[in-house]
């Protein structure tokens, strides 16, 4: 009977050659164009963010190890408190940095989700639901009043400064100076009023609300929870400035708002 082992190696050699040819063909197709699908990670290549995430994991492990060592009696209460406090502070800083870093992406994600659910892409910062249009218009109307006020004060200041340059007598100069100072005060007061004026929307912009699913604190006008993604269903929770979940409704554009301002 013929020894089978040489045949085995001969077949193996042929199979290896075939495998090499297939792999090379796939490689050439990928390199020089072809239908080979490119499967890459969907992770965002964000170096700084990756480092923060790694640091977060490392800090969490350190905290867990520290707790374990403390429970096992290797470290005193005083040392534990000190080290734990420092590590917690640093971890919270990293968490804050991660949150700040992810905000633009969260907004983009919300826009994409809303677009998918609503059938049309919505811009949470540009597009407003129709029922919110009036309040938006009212808001822009208020804003334009304040802006107009500021503009008139500014023009008065400039005029007074110009007249100050032209006046010759001290008394006149003093009067002009006092007028300029008064105008500056008016301008500052107008800016302060602008900053303190409450937003005239159906839902107040300040304040937070708790997510019913994970109890995380969210902005009051948030549509989705920032941690677990729970969608806030209640109308009272709907935001005037964020995109609404309703489909197919036209919303006022920034141009419309500007147009409203110009009309006034």
């Amino acid at each position, binding site marked *: 009977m013929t*020894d089978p082992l040489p045949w085995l*190696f001969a077949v193996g050699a042929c199979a290896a050659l075939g495998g090499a040819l297939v792999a090379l063909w796939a*490689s050439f197709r990928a390199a020089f164009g072809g239908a080979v699908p490119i499967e890459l990670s969907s992770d965002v290549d964000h170096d700084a963010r990756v480092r923060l995430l790694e640091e977060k994991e490392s800090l969490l492990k350190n905290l867990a190890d520290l707790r374990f060592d403390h429970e096992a009696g*290797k*470290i*005193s209460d005083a040392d534990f408190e000190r*080290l734990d406090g420092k590590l917690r502070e*640093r971890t919270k800083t990293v968490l*804050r940095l991660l949150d700040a870093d992810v905000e633009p992406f969260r907004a983009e994600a919300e826009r994409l989700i809303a677009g998918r659910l609503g059938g049309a892409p919505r811009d949470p910062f540009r597009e407003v639901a129709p029922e919110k249009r009036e309040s938006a218009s009212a808001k822009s109307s208020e804003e334009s009043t304040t802006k107009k006020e500021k503009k008139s004060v500014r023009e008065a200041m400039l005029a007074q400064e110009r007249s100050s340059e032209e006046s010759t007598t001290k008394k006149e100069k003093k009067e002009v100076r006092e007028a300029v100072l008064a105008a500056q005060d008016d301008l500052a007061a107008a800016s302060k009023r602008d900053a303190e004026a409450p937003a005239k929307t159906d839902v107040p912009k300040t304040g937070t609300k708790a997510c019913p699913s994970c109890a995380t604190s969210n902005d009051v006008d948030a549509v989705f929870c920032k941690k677990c993604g729970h969608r806030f269903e209640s109308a009272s929770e709907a935001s005037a400035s964020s995109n609404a979940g309703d489909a197919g409704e036209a919303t006022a554009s920034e141009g419309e708002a500007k147009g409203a301002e110009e009309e006034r």
Partner: protein
Amino acid sequence: MPAIDIPFFGNLALCLILVSAAYTFAMALGAQRGRPHLLVAARYGTYATAALVVLAVCLLAYAFQTHDFRIRYVARYSDRSMTWGYLVTALWGGQDGSLLWWTFLLAGYTTACTRWLRGRFLELQPIVLATLASILGFFVVLMLFAANPFATTVAAAPPDGEGLNPLLQNYWMAIHPPALYLGFVGWAVPFAFVMAALVTGRLHDEWIRAARLWAMIAWVWLSIGLLLGCLWSYEELGWGGYWAWDPVENASFHPWLVGTAYLHSAIVQERYGMLKVWNVFLMCLTFLLTIFGTMLTRAGLISSVHAFARSDIGIYFVGYLAVMIVLLVALTIFRLPKLRADHRIDSLLSREFLFLLNNWMLLGIMIFVLVSTTWPLISEWLRGQEVTVGPGFYNQWMVPFGLILLFLTGLGPLVAWRKATASNLGRALIAPLGAAALMFTLHLALGAAAGFPAVVETDEIYDTLTGRILGSIQAVAPLFSSTICAFVLVGIGQEFWRGTKVRMKKGEGPFTALAQLVSRARRRYGGYLVHVGIVFMYVGFTGAAYDVEKEAAVRPGGTVEIADYTLRYDRPRMESDPNKRMIFTDLTVLDEDGDEIGRVAPAKFIYRTMPDMPTTEVSIRSNVREDLYVIMSTVDSQSRRATFRVVVRPLVSWIWFGGLILVLGSVIAMWPQARDVMDRQIALAKRRRGGAAATMLLALAGALSLGGSAQAQDSSSLHAGTVVIEDPEERRLFGRLLCQCGSCQRLPLDSCGCDWAEQRRAELRARMSAGEPPDDLIAAFRGQYGPAAISIPSDEGFDRAMWAIPVALVVVLGGGLFVMGRRWRAKGVVAAPTASEKKAAAGADEADYDARLDEELRRLEGDR
């Protein structure tokens, strides 16, 4: 069988491998610039290269199976009488084939790593693949230009081959080289990751995490390979030992030491962002040492029983090492700004600092062994004088190093990360120190009665103060070894207990708590188990201090008495098979009461193809306490008188048992956590795990199923183990002097059986009988035959530098560590917040983030 032009196709396959590796290298480098399609091309290129390597291996295996003696390599290492199993193992029986075996294993690792990577570490992948392709290319260049396994014989094909060395035709040799090579080759993968990190500048802990599994795999296989080598040496070679500090053995030990240091310090970088430069250095050094070790086996630079024939292949390795060292140094210097530590040591009384001390000792041992191993080269180069560094030198010097390392092994687990409170540490030390004190007292009081005296007699290797100090340490080494072993074992047990207690507070039962403890922190507790294995091995090493040895020539019916045993020589007998004649000598083992407790049958095998090189087949009777080790040196066919060498070796089996525990602990430590498997890309993770597991299983199956050897031996076993020496003084003297017959690998006179050695022994005996002291005889021997004829260099002049420089380095580095540690710890636990970090923190909801942090911790601990 069909006629295939193997030489042609084999050479063609090698050329195609080189082209494919170069193509893969180019594609991978191109992919670095954000062209993902080239990365895909590089991956497929890797698979193609591996397939071509398999093709080459299959062709060579086919040539062996079909006895194609046109190929020089096949004719040299096989013959028609060999069975198919040894024909397979002969693939790596010589230098040429072993290079192809190296390439084959590297191709396997590269394939597994490529599969494992898939969508992970995308920024590192291109350079990882490029590095692995370049290493593959280097070995193919070696084969094509220096040691071609498909080269043909100059003359016509001989009718039959020369056959495989009989010393290589055994079971242990079948699995030792594959395991060792898996360990050696495996370090190329984590090295590829560090190279990628250096090139891309991504020097945070990304590459450490990526390389972790591969570093563990390589370390485990290297450990297994070393252990199997010890077993092979112990059970087959017939000289009675398991580690001879041979240069090639040391060359395998170097990367193991540095790799162990790396595995510890990598943990510190992962946790605290420290030791970045150090870890880069350790990983690069480990890989370079594997190349250096491969070179030592092949270049014939240093005389060794393991070495292949001397060849001019060394220049290729030297060139490769030089290029790599320059490249790595340049890259490291260029990336120094990114290699700054993120944090500092919080306290010298911390596990991080103890890991540093552990690194210090491991590197110190490596430097010492490396300098000693290469001392013959250094001595010849600097002063034109040959010297020999024998096992006696290492056996004495390694004792203090080993004891310090063992102590650090025990202290580390007791100390907390970041900062251990002194009082708490004191409480933690009570039990281990108590156990150590108890063991110290028991050993001192009862050791002698139990056959393990606390203090033993030793030979001093020097007649200087250094020799006396070393001799004193050697004398008390068993006592301190047992004491520190007790300290370490109880300390580790205490760690398991404390961890279990913590979990039991959560309401778990003790066994559940223990199982959960190990399961959720596999790396930590698997590591502790590895330490337990090391302790058991130390117990076995300590037993060597109590060896009892005797030689006797007896006729059938005669007895040999040693320790508590009596061996009765019953009869010789002969058996044969197609390959060899076997001469057995049957002995009955009796206890001190004269009751039969077993039988042993040491033998000599005389192979038909090599009748002048009979092999010694020892017979071993093992139990927990000791091994009875019997060697048959000679047997006279007429008188049936036989010469036996009998050794009682206490505690040897603890070494093998400790090795098993070590491997088990390693497997636990590197078993993937559930969290890692469920992390991000679940489907890819399953394939990755399958890839890594497949690598392990494939390698294990390969190691167990394939037999063979990777190391040719040219020394005749006729020399070994055929000497009758009854006087211990004579044995000590002959052990220091080396045979200069020129046909053996400079075996000591107490074990070389050639005529030249026998004549020298007779002369020396006569002079000893006349009253000449042994030191004078040694000096005279050195004067007559040169310093290379003495197994231990003298402790004077230039030779003193051999131990003085490494010891001075170790002392200076140790002191420097404490000085630097004090400076490092001043910076505190975490970095001060930057301006952007302060801005981000301003106005944030503190309570929310506290809650979130606690939630994250609960998530982490739930997964642990």
